[in-house]
């Protein structure tokens, strides 16, 4: 006789052993008191002039998720395994000689998109600035996008077939 598949749902309910340490740890992690597990992910810090504008740009235009915003001058965003820290320069960041960090420069996060032309079009419609438009490089097509504070974000799309042949990244 075929057993009734619903029998599994009629099994007695088993009490689960409470694990206070796990619950406490989870709570701390949710509150942002614990850093992510060591070795997982990568952290990048960008300085921005306007935190609201930066969060809107990264979350609405580039698909980042806002994880923490504990202060008016700091936010933590995620994009896959990338943790992006956004800081508005302030006294806490001053160098010993008083120099404050500022946005800009050329070093940048690099984000893969499935369709670069469509991504660039969509971003341009929303008013995003590009330091350069789409160029074809070794194995990839790429564009250099600026966030509202002028920080760079490199968008790239692998060229079809190249990586299968070369099994390496673009240059």
């Amino acid at each position: 006789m075929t057993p009734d598949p619903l029998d599994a749902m009629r099994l007695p309910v088993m009490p689960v052993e409470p694990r206070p340490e796990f619950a406490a740890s989870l709570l701390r992690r949710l509150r942002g008191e614990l850093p992510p597990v060591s070795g997982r992910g990568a952290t990048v810090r960008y300085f921005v002039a306007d935190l609201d504008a930066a969060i809107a740009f990264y979350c609405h235009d580039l698909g980042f998720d806002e994880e923490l915003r504990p202060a008016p001058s700091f936010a933590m965003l995620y994009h896959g395994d990338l943790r992006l820290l956004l800081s508005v320069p302030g006294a806490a960041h001053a160098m010993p000689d008083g120099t404050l960090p500022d946005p800009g420069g050329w070093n940048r996060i690099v984000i893969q998109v499935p369709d670069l032309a469509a991504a660039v079009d969509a971003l341009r419609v929303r008013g995003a600035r590009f330091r350069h438009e789409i160029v074809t490089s070794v194995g990839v097509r790429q564009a250099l996008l600026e966030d509202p504070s002028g920080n760079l974000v490199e968008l790239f799309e692998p060229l079809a077939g190249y990586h299968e042949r070369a099994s390496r990244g673009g240059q």
Partner: protein
Amino acid sequence: MTTVSVRYVVNDIDAAIDFYTTHLNFELQMRPNDLFAMLGRGDLRLVLVKPVGPDGPAGGGAPMPDGKMQEPGGWNRFSVEVPDLAGAVEELRSSGARFRNDVVTGVGGKQIIVEDPSGNPVELFEPILTEARLSRPTPSSGQPGR
């Protein structure tokens, strides 16, 4: 596996490779020429590129349409977690590395900014002990620095 890519502009590919592999535990993944290299550390892929002028090859180091060349520096940076910040600083100092500041103790950990040979910043970060973190007055103050 490396899943996050960051590109740094450097003036000397080999000096940068030496710095990141010797002192910061990066692995060299490829160095096809003296304009480009790829390093890995955990989930972070560090793409190093040497800037070229308008006559140089196409690539991540190419100049902008207005002819402006890329250059190292700035303040944006990736952060690497080290288990012993004081030890790491000592080791880097003895090798001649430059630091932009001294160790700063924030609410979430201690950190310092070291420069690679081209002057790019790298944030070294050591998390503060969990016990210390639990004594924080506000629950949301544990982020790794502001």
